[in-house]
């Protein structure tokens, strides 16, 4: 296996009186791209910060490659957390930051960094504080991928990037991971875009783990049904529908909880079954009742 594995047991992290993580436990397999998903404030950034020793846990155990990462020179040199705004010197040229990292990161690839700088149209002589948010995010991607650390943690690094840049990022990530397998944890709101990259998924919600499994197992917990609208409606009676789409007379419904006889029933009704989108499952898993707006305040 290549890359660092991660074991998190009963991890609690508090900010004063706010509990960001409440006794969470999960495992990240080495050499796998794992998606860390959750709504705003679910504890994703805090969890990644503890893994990268950016902050201490209040209680619980975190083992990265079998060791506590806090002040652990070997583990820290092999761990790279890129947060949404980047943690680089704002008054240094991008080229100088790459030189800086090249001297400190044992596996840093300047060749890959230069290739990505070209791909994202980043001027090496610019300083980060002169970049747009999207370009700054792109530079975070350059840093995260070119560091080639055994544990790479990418926390919402796509924010502000336009669609072509985001897809260039996904392609670069996958290509480099295939050539240099390592553990990558990707936190993102754009689940529909990144789900093809993910082998494992950890879903956090309000500081707890909702589910942690491989993406296929998670997807198999649901099914999409596509076909004539009336037939789809008949098929889903009594089932939990988490998403619906309709185009003309064709409808698609996303169901949670697959049944053994789904395939035969679908054939009988002339319907097609398909895999469920992680995005729909995620919305379902993290859905909360919206409080009603009082009549007098409308």
């Amino acid at each position, binding site marked *: 296996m*290549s*890359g*660092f594995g991660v074991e998190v047991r009963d991890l609690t992290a508090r900010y004063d009186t706010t509990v960001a993580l409440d006794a969470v436990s999960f495992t990240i397999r080495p*050499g796998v791209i794992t998606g860390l998903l959750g709504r705003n404030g679910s504890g994703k*950034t805090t969890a990644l*910060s503890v893994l*990268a*020793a*950016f*902050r*201490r846990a209040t209680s619980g155990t975190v083992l990265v*490659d079998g060791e506590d990462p806090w*002040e*652990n*020179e*070997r583990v*820290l*040199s*092999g*761990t*790279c*957390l*890129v*947060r*949404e*705004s980047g*943690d*680089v*010197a*704002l008054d240094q040229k991008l080229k100088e930051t790459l030189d*800086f*990292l090249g*001297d*400190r*990161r*044992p*596996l840093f690839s300047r060749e890959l960094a230069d290739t990505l700088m070209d791909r994202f149209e980043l001027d090496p002589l610019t300083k980060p504080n002169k970049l747009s*948010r999207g370009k*700054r995010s792109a530079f975070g991607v350059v840093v995260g991928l070119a*560091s*080639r*650390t*055994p544990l790479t943690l990418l926390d919402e690094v796509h*924010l*502000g990037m336009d669609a072509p840049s985001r897809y260039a990022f996904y392609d670069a990530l996958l290509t480099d991971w295939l*050539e*240099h*397998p*390592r553990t990558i944890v990707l936190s993102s709101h754009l689940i529909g875009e990144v789900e093809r990259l993910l082998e494992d998924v950890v879903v956090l919600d309000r500081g707890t783990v909702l589910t942690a499994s491989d993406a296929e197992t998670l997807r198999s917990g649901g099914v999409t049904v596509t076909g004539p609208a009336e037939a789809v409606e008949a098929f889903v009676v009594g089932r939990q529908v988490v998403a619906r789409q309709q185009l003309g007379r064709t409808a698609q419904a996303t169901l949670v909880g697959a049944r053994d006889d789904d395939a035969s029933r679908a054939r009988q009704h002339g319907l097609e079954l398909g895999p469920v989108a992680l995005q729909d499952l995620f919305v379902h898993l993290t859905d909360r009742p919206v409080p009603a707006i009082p009549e007098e305040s409308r």
Partner: protein
Amino acid sequence: MSIDTARRPTTSSVRATASWLLWMNLYLAAWFWILAIVAVTVGLVVINQVGEVNNSVLAFARQGAVWFPFSVLIATTAAYLPVHIAAGLTRRSLALGSLVAATGTALAYGLVFTGLLLVERAVFDALGWQWRILEDLTPAETEPLTMLVGTTLLFVVAYVSGLLVGITYQRAGGWWGTVSLPLTAGPILLVFALFAQDAGPFSTSEWFGGDQPLLVASFAALLIAGAMAFAFDRLTRGASVPNRTA
């Protein structure tokens, strides 16, 4: 090809940190002294035109040489912590590297300041001007070695204090960072007094019979610097990386 999970940084992270921070401070020091030389030269020309030159003008730059790098190190401590940790380095290497850089910077400022004082004194002698230092809290002796040792140790305490003030604000926030200033920045004033000839009970010129005031003051300054360095090291090793907004 797989990732080698056992590799460590190829160079000492303390050395890399110290040299990076030292070069940054020396770059700023070069600008500081260039501006100081220009200001002193202009000052001497103006004084000579309107009156009589009988005091060192450069000596007043000692205050600037204390407080400018002190301020820079406060800002550096706050700004560099996330960059350092995000580069996969330990807080231990940050603390030690910062202390080495602060000491090296103090030595550089002390050497340049003393050297420029000697140059200024030679210029005064050549032009027939009287050279003396007219600043409160200056050492009794203006011999080069005394000036070098006293000034360099003052700078060491001031720059370590800058690191300590920075990490205290980082760890404890604005309120406690400000409340603790007498402890974190106060020692600079104490060391000014230790080396001064007329600073009441704080002046070491009267301590232990007044035989070795430089030695006593130097020892006391080193103790103070050591205590502050220890506090900085402890605070740095427990520091969290703050969230930074885009």
